[in-house]
């Protein structure tokens, strides 16, 4: 019996809710870790790049904080994605579920934490003296596009791994490369010749970070960038969904080996 389509959203939201509740109940500080973790990351990067390497400068902390928060949804969501179907093996072998439900639950869970962090970022920027920009309203469309992009990548990652289990070993390194090459703790304009910038920003993660910085710190919006991010997000979302749908019956067999 395949689940009725109208119930999918309800299941995704309810399961995401109880996943968050279960996660929070595991630690003493509960949901405060959603903020403490990136704050610790901020301290480490500031210590290494700002103090030891003297790479800081005016606005370094605000740029760094926006970068760390901006990359967060993608990194946290995708790092766990390759093993999603394997972790849900019991459900896969007992219930005829559309497989996109698992990455969707995971992405919604990460998205909720990200929203919390985004609100914290906005408060933090105000405290640090960044004047509110009207372009901050663009946070809504940018974040929506970002969620679609992340969901698309999560669907692809969790679908690939049952076919090629070794991918679960490889992905953390790819994720690390994306993190370090996306301008989280530097502005590529300060290092790269202009002709290479287009290639740098072809990396969607770098573009999302730039989009967050533009709308929150610089009061600008780059429509071309947003159009590019929207197009690539829709493409990945459709590709991921189609992949999981086409291979739907193969996953229980692959995870049962």
């Amino acid at each position: 019996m395949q689940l009725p389509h109208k119930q999918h959203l309800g299941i995704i939201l309810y399961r995401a809710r109880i996943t968050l509740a279960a996660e929070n109940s595991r630690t003493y500080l509960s949901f405060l870790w959603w903020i403490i973790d990136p704050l610790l990351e901020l301290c480490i990067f500031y210590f290494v790049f700002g103090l030891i390497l003297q790479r800081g400068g005016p606005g370094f902390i605000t740029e760094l904080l926006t970068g760390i928060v901006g990359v967060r949804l993608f990194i946290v969501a995708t790092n766990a994605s390759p093993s999603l179907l394997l972790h849900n093996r019991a459900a896969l072998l007992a219930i005829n579920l559309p497989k996109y439900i698992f990455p969707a639950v995971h992405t919604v869970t990460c998205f909720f934490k990200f929203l919390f962090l985004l609100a914290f970022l906005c408060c933090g920027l105000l405290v640090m003296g960044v004047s509110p920009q009207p372009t901050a309203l663009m946070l809504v469309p940018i974040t929506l596009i970002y969620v679609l992009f992340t969901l698309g990548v999560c669907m692809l990652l969790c679908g690939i791994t049952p076919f090629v289990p070794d991918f679960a070993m490889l992905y953390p390194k790819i994720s690390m490369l994306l993190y370090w090459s996306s301008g989280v703790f530097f502005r590529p304009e300060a290092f790269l010749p202009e002709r290479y910038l287009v290639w740098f920003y072809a990396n969607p993660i770098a573009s999302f970070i730039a989009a967050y910085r533009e709308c929150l710190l610089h009061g600008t919006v780059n429509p071309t960038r947003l159009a590019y991010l929207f197009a690539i997000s829709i493409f990945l979302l459709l590709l991921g969904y189609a992949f999981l749908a086409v291979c739907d019956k193969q996953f229980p067999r692959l995870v049962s080996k």
Partner: protein
Amino acid sequence: MTNTQVPAITVDDMHVRFVRKRLFKKTAEAHVLKGISFTLNKGDSLAVIGFNGAGKSTLLRVMAEILAPDAGKCLNHNVSTALLAMGVGMFPQCSGRVNTVMQLMLQLGIGKREAESMVDGIAAYAELERVIDDPLTTYSTGMSMRLQFAIATQSRPDVLLVDEILAVGDLPFRQKSIATMRAKLSSGDTVVFVSHALNEVRELCQRAIWLENGIILADGAAKDVVKEYVQYFNILGKNK
């Protein structure tokens, strides 16, 4: 029992293989179902018996449309199927109520409100009314099994597929759960029942299939097939 002429699921020369490839090891292949054929009619109570590794659970998963066969057919004649599953993806840190709602939504495909309205009845059946709002981590294994059984038996599809779930919990609850399963098996609903409990199979099922090593060795009246199975392996004494 009811009309035995209307097919619900037709299995025709069905093969299922599991292949595992590794770089430095020989490819491992398990040919789990080797060209089996039978028809499940509406109203049948069919038992599938056989030793561990015979392919019984794989057969149920194909009938539940969770797995697809490699060759041959498993033709569903427009009937809904559900594999009776216990404790699929429970969240131990969350309450019995929350887990029950989640399981009902997943297994029955119903909305949250409908699922919430069923929780108290399930808790009463499982005799867990006083602890249903406590986290599952505080439940004993028996209490957890009772809740899972109570959730799993809510399913009412056209064809119910039951994989070795007959009795759980302490003695009073075991009797209750056996009575529930007996009621399901003798209700006239279409049920496929995988079990090692040969006495119940003989008593409750009209028909049985003896599956061994992916091949059907016998298909017929439950009493006859169980008799054949017992004679062949001489296990009745051990079972008692």
